[in-house]
């Protein structure tokens, strides 16, 4: 029996959504119908319930009529549930005692017959009213935060992110797998689109990181285990055979990429002909000035682009975004080093986007680099020289281009160990194998795991400015919980009835978030409410029906369903 205090006093608010709902559903009739449902004290309809006047209507009713539950019949809860929960809360109604009836996406937008749609809207409202009747108030909850950020990877992305976190006054821990900082970029002699020596800016960046009192650099180290949740991550780092635990509030993944291995494209003869090298290898040769092939300076150098990129058969459908500019850079540098040498870039498309990209491409051509359109199909030997077999698609003629040095502009791939990090942090990957951002537009540095952010090429191929920009964005997002000092945690968690629990542990196995654990003393399941995401997997798995998910209890759901099946 319900006490007088919790006896339902429900307000129902039917939204017109302009004409989105009102054109197909008789909203007035729905409100009238709702008025007579059990427990309903007030039912209204209004043009836009989400507008300020609409919200005010709810708040004022809550106070004036002493409502303790609210039903809004409007759109999908995805957008406006927080809006209406807040309105109810302001009116003195526990925000978890609100329910939405979706009469737009699930009714007016998908039906034409107004009479039938109105009937359906009434049933949906009755169902929401039935559920809200059984809803219990829940507490808003918060958890504390370990002040600090773990940065996985010590390349340019990791360095930039760590520096921003540290500059904001919080500790940053860089865990780097190799024995030095700087990542791939440290092996680049010069950068596009300015041909500046990389060391000029990278060395000071590394020095600032190394000397920063708030940054701890761990080399030859890797993350072994990650427990906890946003604000309270417990990270086990393995360094020199020694495990140590670092507690942080947030994590930035900056693990970078690996270069495509061109031996997977056997038609180029990489590994077979000494004159065939990758852009990476040429970078090292340009640094030492050693451009000799077969005992002499090459008279002809040819670049092949898109090696390992834009290739569905290889499983790399994406553009690696940097190779066009890398080729333009190296082609210019070869021209500078060997002014007599003919340099040709074979391309499918020239992607010279970004600041100064197109200008840099202009500069390459002005430096005498020849651009020919055609995707080189194979490389073979003729005497001492190499032959590229390629159709010049503008000439509409297949040619044999004789050369001395073939440079393969190799693309980027997800690192082989991406799966390890992905498993540690339960991070999804996109179809191409890189880490998946939470939203392509609105959450490009966020992940589906709260408190874990992405920076640099581990998310997708990108150049240095974009990497640094993303790293700084990830750092600023990672700082938010640290600065606030607390993190909100959801309230609709699963709870265990210890009387019913048999301690079988199936909930422990099925939970993707590690929330349930068997109590060592009592042998029953205990759910860490802070870890629980409210997915309900444990509740449906539990053979003893000992677990229920708050806001989705069997009683609540059955009440909702019963009305629908009348």
């Amino acid at each position: 029996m319900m006490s007088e205090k919790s006896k339902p006093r429900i307000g129902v608010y039917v939204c017109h959504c302009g004409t989105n709902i009102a054109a197909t559903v008789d909203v007035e009739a729905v409100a009238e119908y709702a008025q007579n449902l059990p427990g309903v004290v007030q039912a209204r309809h209004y043009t836009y319930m989400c507008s300020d006047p609409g919200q005010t209507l709810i708040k004022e009713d809550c106070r004036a009529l002493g409502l303790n539950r609210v039903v809004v019949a409007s759109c999908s809860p995805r957008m406006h549930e927080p809006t209406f929960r807040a309105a109810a809360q302001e009116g003195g109604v526990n925000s978890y005692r609100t329910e939405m009836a979706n009469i737009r996406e699930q009714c007016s937008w998908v039906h034409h017959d107004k009479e039938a749609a109105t009937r359906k809207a009434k049933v949906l409202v009755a169902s929401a009213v039935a559920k809200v009747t059984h809803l219990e108030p829940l507490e808003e909850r918060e958890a504390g935060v370990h002040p600090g950020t773990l940065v996985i990877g010590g390349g340019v992305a990791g360095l930039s992110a760590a520096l921003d976190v540290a500059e904001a006054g919080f500790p940053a821990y860089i865990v780097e797998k190799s024995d030095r900082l700087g990542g791939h970029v440290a092996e680049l002699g010069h950068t596009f689109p300015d041909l500046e020596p990389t060391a000029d800016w990278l060395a000071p960046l590394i020095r600032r990181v190394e000397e920063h009192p708030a940054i701890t650099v761990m080399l030859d180290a890797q993350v072994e285990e990650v427990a906890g949740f946003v604000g309270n991550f417990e990270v086990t780092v393995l360094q020199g055979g020694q495990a140590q635990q670092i507690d942080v509030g947030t994590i930035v993944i900056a693990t970078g990429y690996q270069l495509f291995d061109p031996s997977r494209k056997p038609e180029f003869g990489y590994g077979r002909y000494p004159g065939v090298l990758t852009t990476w290898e040429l970078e090292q040769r340009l640094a030492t000035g050693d451009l000799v092939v077969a005992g002499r300076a090459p008279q002809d150098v040819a670049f092949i682009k898109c090696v390992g990129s834009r290739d569905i058969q290889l499983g790399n459908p994406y553009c690696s975004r940097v190779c066009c500019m890398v080729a333009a850079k190296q082609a210019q540098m070869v021209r500078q080093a060997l002014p007599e040498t003919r340099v040709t870039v074979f391309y499918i498309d020239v992607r010279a986007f970004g600041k100064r990209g197109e200008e840099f491409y202009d500069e390459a051509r002005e430096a005498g680099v020849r651009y020919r359109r055609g995707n080189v199909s194979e490389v073979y030997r003729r005497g001492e020289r190499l032959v590229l077999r390629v159709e010049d698609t503008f000439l509409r003629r297949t040619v044999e281009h004789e050369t001395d040095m073939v440079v393969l502009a190799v693309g980027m791939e997800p690192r082989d160990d991406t799966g390890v990090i992905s498993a540690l942090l339960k991070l999804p990957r996109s179809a191409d194998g890189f880490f998946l951002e939470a939203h392509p537009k609105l959450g490009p540095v966020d992940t589906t795991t709260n408190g874990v952010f992405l920076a640099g090429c581990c998310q997708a191929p990108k150049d240095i400015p974009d990497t640094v920009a993303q790293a700084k964005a990830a750092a600023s997002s990672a700082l938010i919980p640290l600065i606030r000092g607390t993190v909100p945690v959801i309230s609709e968690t699963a709870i265990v009835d210890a009387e019913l629990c048999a301690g079988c542990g199936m909930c422990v196995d099925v939970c993707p978030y590690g929330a349930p654990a068997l109590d060592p003393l009592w042998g029953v399941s205990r759910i860490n409410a802070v870890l629980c995401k409210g997915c309900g997997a444990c509740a449906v798995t539990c053979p003893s029906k000992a677990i229920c998910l708050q806001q989705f209890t069997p009683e609540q759901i059955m009440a909702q369903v019963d009305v629908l099946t009348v």
Partner: protein
Amino acid sequence: MQDIQQFANEIGLDLDLLACIQCGKCSGGCPVSITTALNIRFLVYESLLDALPELVHMEELWDCTCCFTCVERCPKDVRPAELIITLRNQLVESGKIPGTIGEALMGIFRQGNPLGLAREDRALWAEGLDVKPAREGCDTLLFTCCYSAYDVQSQPATKALVRILHAAGVDLGYLGTEETCCGNEVKRVGEKAMFDEMLVEEGKALLESVGARCIVTTSPHCYNTFKNEYGLEGIEVLHYTQVLARLLEEGQLKLSVPVEKTVTYHDPCFLGKQNKVFDEPRAVLRAIPGLNFVEMDRIRERSLCCEGGGGRMWFEGTNTEDRLAFQRVQEAVDTGAEVLAVACPFCLAMLADAAKVKGLEEQLKVMDISELVVQALGDGG
């Protein structure tokens, strides 16, 4: 474009015109793109724009050897060669095909072989070899390519193979005059209906009726279509080099007589590029005692096509002066090899002919791998 794409789909091809980015990987690697007017990339472009010229005037459509280099390399998986097969199907439908190809198809229709030779003569090559009729039941069914059976140039290899398999104790059966062309090239010259309705339907039933555990083919072409297109159930399809490599590895086949020759090997497109069988033929050659194995520059995925596939055995092509086989035999000679080993009756015909035309016969002998293996058999084979 839609018409062509739809037609391709209707005849069961995976051609995907819309995926094309016109990069030129196909045309750049097409072995006949320099020596003929065929430009497969441009054909795709013209198809996309509905700007194809009248097909009957495009003699180069018959130059394609269906080596599938373009299909293997296309980064967008357009499967460019299937456009040519599609267009050939359209030409076949309207009856506008080169006369020699028509004759070959007629030969298959009437006699079960493109040479148009009498069906009852198909097993003459096997006289005296004591090959068991497949009907008596066998573990391994030998399937001879029409050329392996009828062509005097190929017959020694066929006989050699039987001797080797017998020496290794293989329970071998043969269909003899019941055998009919596999139709691999029939499909590729655009006679889809004949391939499906006559060859696959009847051939599949025939092959399955034997109850053999595996089929061993003399030709990579039969191997390709049986393995990938016939949908044979419960039968393993193997090219003979795979069988020999396996027998050598398991010790059932022993080679003891040295064959003191320097030998190089030419990868057939339908065995190598299209089915990735690169290592077994080499393993067999390396297992021959005394044999000095050398490689040419263009091997495996980069092997040069002999121009015998895709119906080119029955059509001269527009590049008679400048055949790829001419280039290939020269490449073989340049390695210092005395023998150019092949594993395909088409390659044998094309390359042996080229060696003759180029006057290289004295320097270079074109031989099937089984002809070399048989020499290494202890008891004379």
